[in-house]
């Protein structure tokens, strides 16, 4: 595996990075990198464009936040519960969505996500427009206090590595090969005897659960779960991250998340804050028109052509 040295190098960078950069910002990037990687599992490797992935991010966040506030459970249990609830919701939505293909799949996922958005807006436990505030970070295993940002960052890094490893394993497993076969030629996969919808469904569940994991972790980092994470804008953002980084590449979503989160952070601090959505829309259009393979995809092409 050629990417192994690169992974070790990146891990090394991630371990020392909080000495130079604000840990909460880094943790945010890691959460979105995990979210985008989970989304890319579906788009890049199974060829399914979901326009409602924010709902899994948000659900993971709400469930974990609610448990941390009301149950006194330790954070790792709350995060696992959040992940499972995202997976469960993914099982229901996936079952419905895989009945349709292509653009219908995109519309179905968007509409289902909007349905849940309205439910969360009305439901008493989410805090509606105000969101769920003051979520305690708690102590992992009842031992490690997460209130320190540095400690929190390393906890997030551990979760990210676990999630990323799982995606990496899925992509390189026999299951992942079948997923790619479906992406490339669905009818042929069917003719070879694979139950295509079953494979898509399982991929959807894994992707939803990992997105919820990202949301659950993000809630702990920011001590907040809000409707922003469920809004369709967020579903658009994760598509943009994946697109900018490179659809269907292992490292693309990481790079994309880093670029977009940094851009948002930089812009929202300065005069250009008001132009954020305009700029995001423009980046979308430019990427689609002339940069379809994304940053990592371009680098891979460059390497193939020159080395």
């Amino acid at each position, binding site marked *: 595996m050629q990417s192994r040295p690169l992974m070790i190098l990146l891990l090394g960078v991630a371990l020392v990075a909080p000495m130079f950069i604000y840990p909460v910002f880094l943790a945010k990037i890691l959460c979105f990198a995990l979210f985008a990687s989970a989304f890319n599992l579906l788009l890049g490797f199974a060829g399914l464009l979901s326009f409602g992935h924010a709902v899994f991010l948000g659900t993971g966040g709400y469930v974990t936040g609610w448990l941390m506030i009301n149950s006194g459970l330790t954070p790792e249990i709350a995060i696992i519960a959040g992940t499972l609830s995202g997976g469960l919701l993914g099982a229901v939505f996936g079952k419905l969505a895989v009945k349709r293909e*292509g653009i219908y799949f995109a519309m179905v996922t968007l509409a289902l996500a909007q349905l849940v958005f309205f439910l969360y807006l009305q439901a008493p436990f989410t805090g509606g427009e105000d969101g769920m505030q003051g979520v305690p970070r708690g102590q992992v295993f009842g031992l490690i206090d997460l209130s320190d940002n540095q400690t929190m960052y390393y906890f997030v890094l551990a979760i990210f590595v676990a999630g990323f490893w799982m995606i990496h394993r899925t992509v390189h497993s026999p299951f992942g090969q079948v997923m790619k076969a479906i992406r490339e030629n669905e009818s042929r996969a069917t003719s070879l005897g694979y139950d295509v919808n079953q494979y898509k469904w399982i991929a959807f569940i894994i992707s939803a659960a990992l997105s919820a994991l990202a949301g659950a972790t993000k809630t702990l980092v920011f001590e907040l779960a809000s409707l922003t994470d469920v809004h369709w804008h967020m579903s658009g953002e994760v598509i943009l991250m994946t697109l900018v980084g490179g659809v269907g590449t292992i490292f693309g979503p990481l790079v994309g998340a880093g670029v977009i989160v940094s851009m948002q952070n930089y812009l929202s601090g300065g005069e250009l804050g008001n*132009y954020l959505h305009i700029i995001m829309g423009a980046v979308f259009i430019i990427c*689609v028109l002339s940069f379809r393979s994304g940053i990592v995809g371009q680098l891979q092409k460059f390497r193939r052509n020159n080395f």
Partner: protein
Amino acid sequence: MATFLGINLFALFGQLLVGLINGSFYALLSLGLAIIFGLLKIINFAQGAMYMLGAFLALLGLKYLGLNYWAALIIVPLAVSVFGVLIQRFLIRPIANEDHLYSLLLTFGLALMMQGIFTHLFGSSGQSYATPDALKGGMRLPFMYLPNYRAWIIVVSILVCFSTWWMIEKTKLGVYLRAGTENPQLLQAFGINVPLIVTLTFGFGVALAGLAGVMAAPIYSVSPDMGSNILIIVFAIVVIGGMGSIGGAILTGLGMGLVEGLTKYFYPEASATIIFLVMVIVLMLKPAGLFGKTA
């Protein structure tokens, strides 16, 4: 108060009227989506933004150019259509041979940008547009009060929908359109300029959204996010009806408006979600949609 079996007819008919109005807009928007889908095989995510653009152009035209409602009804859809033609020609056509998901993402980016620009210029709060004088007032019917403007919306949108259907099913232009939907290469081989037809179709599809926007301006507040809110509902409607037939898109739009109106009367808490719930049920029972051919 007129009641029947414990139902307050006055309130029920009022909600059904609101439902029919919403349904008129759903029908216009999903009709535009279906026409564009037929030839371009993409869903125009910017359809909601075009609707918003139509409403804003009407508002700004009145404010700065003294363009009245009647003139706006003609000029604004044309302007939106020209904008759409430029978008199709210079942004969508270059990537028409790529995976259709890219065109979809392009229109999504465009929608984000347009919404962002209008939010930046006019803020996110809604603005109001005065009902034209000729359509003020209303009629008192046995069980309800029918404001003239609302009656006008229903009549115009049904007329527009029906004449579009007629044009596609019965005219020469419609024949080209349907032939292009079936087999663009063959049509091109007959010497028809297919790329031109595709561009004009896109222009016509978004013009319908622009027209809906002008008509919506006096009854809904004109705000940058008006388009995205309605568009997601229209997507659910398109999934319910399927995009196989033009008539199906119109009927599903009107029908879902009525369903929403009924829900507002019987169980208001679910009125925001009912159409999505119908979509879930349709997906379970008839995945191709009510009027769809195959999945």
